């Protein structure tokens, strides 16, 4: 009798194990598969054709007018790329039938009040299924409010403040796939702690909340991973500064071996350019100075030694990622017209890469939820794991809806497989996710 019981329980155990293997992949989440990607040769970002009829609608909230309109252009091509691909595959499964993807612009004009209006118009009039955006934490906060109020999923893909998902600001409809300032700080510190080449750091950041919190995160990261390192000075300059010379002269006199900067463009580009003009050849550790148009003006010599830290990075040694990149580049070389024909759009690296990757993820989540009902989507996306373009792992932390992922660092060299006009990264150093974690947000403690 006991023997029978034992064999039965062993059999049950076997069945359970086997079923785990069968169900496991289905539970584990989605994956970006290059072989599934449709033939994109007819993709034209200048004339994206929205499908008509009963569609799945993405509302892209960005700056589409005024001096910052370039931002909108950038994320228009990334969203349309994904939409075009998915549409050629037949769309995603929503409420039992396949729906094609429609992309609708919401012009934030970079102002909080307009952002609210644009978001509400997308939700209430255009009846979008998901909100997507935006650059600037103060604007992201406004959209989070709209998402909460009208119970709409908001894919927060571009803002980095640590506080966006804290106890006060968290709401269950918002999912952040952009890495946050704490991750940047830890990534940078960990990279230099492993390299052990430089010890003296100087911080130059933009004088606003983001710049300051980035600097704080970097200092925190250094204490955690690289206590031997020393911050020999720090400065904060106004946004859109004209003259970086006084900061650079100070940094040079401090004997710094690396300047850490969180500047985005045009400040970041001007900072490096003016440094080289002044004969300050200290390398910059940066997160946004990877824009080839700006760097090509500084040239291969001046851009050598820059260290870029990113949550997405083109890697010549990653076959999957490279294959995707080559498909993109081919279209860039042969098809696209202004404004999508400059060096910025040559490779889907950095910003373009993660915007594309996380948009694929988002649609995959909706597809698996089989519905645009926010409650169902939340259930799927919380704790979800997705394999990105290069086979990299993306995890949506359930407690505060913030992404956990490996991050990357690279030092720019010349020649490189990417550009002839400038230095760029060839060797990619991966910082494991557990070494570059976001701060614990709401419900995590």
């Amino acid at each position, binding site marked *: 009798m006991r023997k029978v019981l034992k064999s039965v329980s062993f059999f049950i155990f076997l069945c359970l194990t086997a079923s785990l293997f069968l169900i496991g992949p289905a539970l584990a989440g989605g994956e970006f598969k290059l072989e599934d990607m449709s033939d994109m040769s007819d993709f034209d970002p200048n004339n994206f054709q929205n499908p008509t009829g009963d569609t799945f609608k993405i509302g892209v909230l960005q700056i*589409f*007018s*005024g001096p910052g*309109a370039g931002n*909108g252009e950038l994320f228009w091509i990334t969203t349309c790329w994904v939409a075009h691909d998915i549409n050629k595959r037949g769309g995603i499964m929503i409420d039992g039938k396949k729906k094609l993807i429609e992309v609708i612009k919401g*012009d934030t*004009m970079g*102002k*909080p*009040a*307009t952002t*609210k*209006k*644009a978001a*509400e*118009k997308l939700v*209430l*009039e255009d009846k979008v299924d998901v909100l997507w955006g935006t650059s*600037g*934490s*103060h604007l992201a*906060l*406004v959209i989070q*409010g709209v998402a909460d*109020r009208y119970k709409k999923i908001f894919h927060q893909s571009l803002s980095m*403040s640590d*506080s966006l998902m804290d106890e*006060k*600001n968290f709401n269950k409809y918002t999912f952040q796939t952009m890495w946050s300032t704490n991750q940047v700080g830890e990534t940078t510190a960990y990279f230099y702690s492993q390299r052990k080449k430089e010890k003296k750091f100087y911080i130059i950041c933009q*004088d*606003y*909340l*983001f710049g*300051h919190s980035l600097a704080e995160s970097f200092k925190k990261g250094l204490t955690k991973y690289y206590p031997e390192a020393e911050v020999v000075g720090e400065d904060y300059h106004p946004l859109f500064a004209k003259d970086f010379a006084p900061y650079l002269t100070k940094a040079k006199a401090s004997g710094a071996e690396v300047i850490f900067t969180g500047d985005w463009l045009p400040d970041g580009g001007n900072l490096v350019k003016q440094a080289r003009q002044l004969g300050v050849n200290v390398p910059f550790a940066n997160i946004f100075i990877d824009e080839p148009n700006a760097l090509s003006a500084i040239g291969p010599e001046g851009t050598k030694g820059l260290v870029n830290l990113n949550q997405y990075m083109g890697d010549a040694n990653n076959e999957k990622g490279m294959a995707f990149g080559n498909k993109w580049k081919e279209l860039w070389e042969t098809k696209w017209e202004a404004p999508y024909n400059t060096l910025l759009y040559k490779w889907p690296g950095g910003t373009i890469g993660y915007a594309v990757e996380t948009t694929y993820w988002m649609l995959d989540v909706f597809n698996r939820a089989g519905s645009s009902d926010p409650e169902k989507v939340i259930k799927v996306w919380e704790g979800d794991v997705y394999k990105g373009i290069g086979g990299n792992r993306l995890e949506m932390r359930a407690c505060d809806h913030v992404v956990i992922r490996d991050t990357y660092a690279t030092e720019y060299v010349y020649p490189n497989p990417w550009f002839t006009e400038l230095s760029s990264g060839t060797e990619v150093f991966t910082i494991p996710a557990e070494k570059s974690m976001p701060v614990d947000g709401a419900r995590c403690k």
Partner: protein
Amino acid sequence: MNKFVRNLIMWVVFLAVAGAAPHVLGIVKTNVLVELATFALFAVSLNLLLSFTGVLSFGHALFYGVGAYTTALLLYHVEGFPLIPALLLSGLAAGLAGLILSPLLVRVTGTAFAMLTLAFGQLMYILCLKFREVTGGEDGVAGYDIPPLNIPGVASLDMLDSTVFYYFTVVVCVIGIMIMWFFTKTPLGQVVVGIRDNSLRVDYLGYRVRHTKAIIFALSGFFAGIAGSLFALFQGVVSTDGVLHVMVSFYPIMAILIGGIGTFFGPILGSGILIVLEDMIMRYTERAELVTGLLFIIVVLYVPGGFVWLWMGLVARFKARKLRMSKEVEA
């Protein structure tokens, strides 16, 4: 009597249209009206300064910002702070700011006044960015609860309901604008007009020019603060760029110029034009700057003084023509 009937009809029409609007237009367009009402109150408060003391402020965002931040910080830090006190305290805080600055401001006029207010506005802007521990810097203050309007024993109105909030805003703005309107009719208001026209004479008459000007600053600041408070309640987020940026000061100036200089209702019309225009731009074009820029140029060249004057000009021409025609008939 005739005038009374006309006014009565106008009020009935206004109330009917304003009352029906949210039920006809839907939430998005109702919210545009909320913005319009708030902005009109802000523009009229600036116009109070311009029209009744003859000075143009380039830093009116300061008062707007003080009002908005007062509301946001009160609601953020004090649990369950009631609505009306928050609104009034915000107005008072902004009015107080006006009083504090007035000893410096009353000394100057014209361009110097504009520049001095610009300097104070920018100073406030930068200070708010610097004291990010209090103001939240660029990200601003968010995540505060909007309290309901409690009328004891009658009702508790949920301010998160778009329609309810619309009615609340319209009532507050109409009351505010009416107070400013009646102010221009009071003896004190008349003294103020005197200051604009001939400050020396008013001085001789025994009124204290500087004290009277200070009252205007405080009053104008008070209503700008109320407008800012409404903004804070409406948006749910108050950030430095949203309420203290130099363009926040320029925008109501544009409303006055487009609507009609030297009139009481011009700024309200101008606010309407600007807000509706912005909404149209958001919907139909990415050439926001071209449209706005051309509007400004065209207004200045072809509708100098603003649309109210264009309207009055048309009315005058129409009357003249009618008069001429009746004369021709007589002849």
